[in-house]
C-alpha cells in the first residue's frame, strides 16, 4: 500500500461513458493482485474532495502499467475522464484483499460473473486463473448494448456469455439466468442485488464476492465502509470493505 503519483499513459472511451485508463509508475508490479483496488484522486483542487475506489482491471508488471476501467457518471469520474495523457494521477494502492487466486489449482473450473462496472477486476483475475491452468467461464451482465465492453478480451481466456437487461445484446435478462451450476469456484463482482442472488450459489470449492461501499479513507481507518458479520450475535463484529475486503467469501458478511 503506497501513494503513487502515476502518469496517465492513455485514456479512451471503450463503451458509452466507459473509460479505460492506463497509468504508469515504476512501483506498479506483481504486488498488485486481482480483486484489489486503487483509490484515485480525481482533479486537482478540493472539488471533488474524496478519492474514488476503482478496481485493478489489469497490471503489466514488466511495463509497470495498471489499467482501470470506470464509468464516468458522477463528479469525480467525469473529472477523471477529462484528464489527458501526461498528467499525474495520484493513487493509493494496491488496497484491500483480492480474489484468492492462490487457492485454485490446475484443472479446476471457475465461473466469473460480472455486472456492469463490476466486470473490470475479473479481467485480471481471468488472466491469472488461466495462467494457473484453471478453466474459466464468464457471464457478464450489462444494462444495454452500448455499455458492453471487453467481450473479445475475455474470450482469450474462456467462453463469454453476455446478458443485457433490455435484450439489446447477447441474452436478455440477468446473469443469474445464465449460470453454469458445476463450477468449482464462483467469483463475482457487481451491484449488490446481483451479489445477493449469487450468495447461495453452490460452488464446490468456494464462492467469492467483491463488494462495493462508499468509502472515506479506503485504508481501514475511518470505518465508513463496514459491514456486519453473518451469524454474529453480539452485533459488534464487522469487516471493512476497504481493508478486509473488497472480496469476501460468501457467507462471511451480511450483504
Amino acid at each position, binding site marked *: 500500500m503506497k501513494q503513487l503519483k502515476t502518469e496517465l499513459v492513455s485514456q479512451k472511451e471503450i463503451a458509452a461513458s466507459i473509460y479505460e485508463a492506463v497509468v504508469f509508475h515504476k512501483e506498479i508490479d506483481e504486488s498488485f493482485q486481482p480483486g484489489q483496488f486503487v483509490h484515485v484522486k480525481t482533479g486537482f483542487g*478540493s472539488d471533488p474532495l474524496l478519492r474514488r475506489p476503482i478496481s485493478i482491471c489489469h497490471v503489466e508488471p514488466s511495463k509497470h502499467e495498471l489499467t482501470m476501467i470506470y464509468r464516468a457518471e458522477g463528479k469525480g469520474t467525469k473529472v477523471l475522464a477529462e484528464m489527458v495523457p501526461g498528467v499525474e494521477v495520484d493513487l493509493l494502492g494496491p488496497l484491500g484483499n483480492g480474489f484468492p487466486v492462490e487457492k485454485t489449482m490446475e484443472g479446476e473450473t471457475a465461473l466469473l460473473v460480472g455486472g456492469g462496472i463490476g466486470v473490470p477486476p475479473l479481467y485480471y483475475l481471468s488472466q491469472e486463473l488461466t495462467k494457473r491452468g484453471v478453466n474459466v467461464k464468464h457471464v457478464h451482465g450489462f444494462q444495454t448494448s452500448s455499455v458492453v465492453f471487453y467481450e473479445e478480451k475475455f474470450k482469450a481466456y474462456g467462453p463469454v456469455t453476455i446478458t443485457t437487461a433490455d435484450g439489446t445484446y447477447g441474452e436478455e435478462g440477468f446473469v443469474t439466468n445464465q449460470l453454469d451450476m458445476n463450477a468449482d469456484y464462483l467469483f463475482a463482482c457487481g451491484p449488490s442485488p446481483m451479489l445477493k442472488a449469487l450468495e447461495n450459489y453452490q460452488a464446490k470449492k468456494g464462492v467469492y464476492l467483491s463488494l462495493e461501499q*462508499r*468509502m472515506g479513507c479506503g485504508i*481501514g481507518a*475511518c*470505518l465508513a465502509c463496514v459491514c456486519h458479520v453473518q451469524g454474529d450475535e453480539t452485533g459488534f463484529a464487522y469487516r471493512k470493505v476497504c481493508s478486509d475486503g473488497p472480496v469476501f467469501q460468501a457467507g462471511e458478511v451480511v450483504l
Partner: protein
Amino acid sequence: MSRLRVELPGLDLKNPIMPASGCFGFGREYSQFYSLDQLGAIMVKATTHEPRFGNPTPRVAETTSGMLNAIGLQNPGLERVMVEELPWLSKFDVPIIANVAGSTIEDYVTVAEEISTAENVHALELNISCPNVKEGGLAFGTVPETAYEVTKAVKEVSSVPVYVKLSPNVTDIVQMAKVVERAGADGLTMINTLLGMRIDLKTGKPILANGAGGLSGPAIKPVAIRMIHQVSQQVNIPIIGMGGVQSAEDVIEYFLAGASAVAVGTANFVDPFTCPTIIDALPALLDELGVHHISELTGRSWKTEWNLQSSSH
C-alpha cells in the same frame, strides 16, 4: 525543530500538528505510510464504555469541498482500547489524546477515569459534540448546562488534563466555551462537524443511511476560523483548532485566529501524508513570515499589541 515545539496542559508537543479524532483510527493504518513518531500528538477515535457498531451504511457522502459522515462512534469499547489499541500505540514516541464519548454522564466518567490512567494518554478530548448518535452526543454540546456538568464530572475523575470538543452547531459558541472553562476544562478543541445532509436524486432519500451527518473538510474552515477567533479572545485556556486543514498555510491561519495547535481530519483521507507534509513545510513558512517560533502567531489576528508593532514596520 524547537521552533515548532508547543507546550499545552498535559502535552509537550514536538510540533503542533496532530490527526483529528475519527480520521486516523488508532493509528495502525497510517503507520503503514510513515512513522507516527513524527506527529505532535494523535487524537484517537472516540472510545465509549461498551463497544459500538455505529450507524448503518452508507456512512459517508461527498459534498462540494467537504464530506458528510455518520459513523456513529463505532469503536471496540473501553476494554479493548485499553488492552489492544493504546498499548500498540505506546511503541511510538507520541502523546495520545483520548477522545471520550458516551450517552450519559456516567458513561463519560467511566471511560475518562480509566482511559486517563493509560501511560501514553496525556490528555482527554471530551467529545460532547458528535452529531451522529441519537442520545447524548450533540445534546451535551449544545446545552450549556449539560456541557458544564459533564465537563465538571470528568475533570473530577481524570488523571490527565481535559480538553472539551465544541460543536459549531450553536448560536453562541463563546457562551459554550466559557461554560466549559468554568467547569474546569484545561483546553478546547474546535470545531467538530457541522450538521449537514445530502439527498440522492435517484432514490429521493438522504445518501447517508442515518439521514443527516457531520460536515467536515475545507468547506467548513471559515466557520472554524471565525469561531476560534471569537472564542480565543474570551477564554484563558488554549485551543486546538481543526476543520478543513490541508496545508501549512491553513495551520498558520488557525494560529493567527487563536489556536495553539492544529488537528487534521478529513485531509488524511485525501492525502495520507498530509500531517508529515505540513510538519515539514512549517519551518520555511515561518521564515517567510519572519516568525521565529510558531507560538508567537497565536491570536495575532486580534492582538492589538501586534497591530501596533506591525504598523511600525
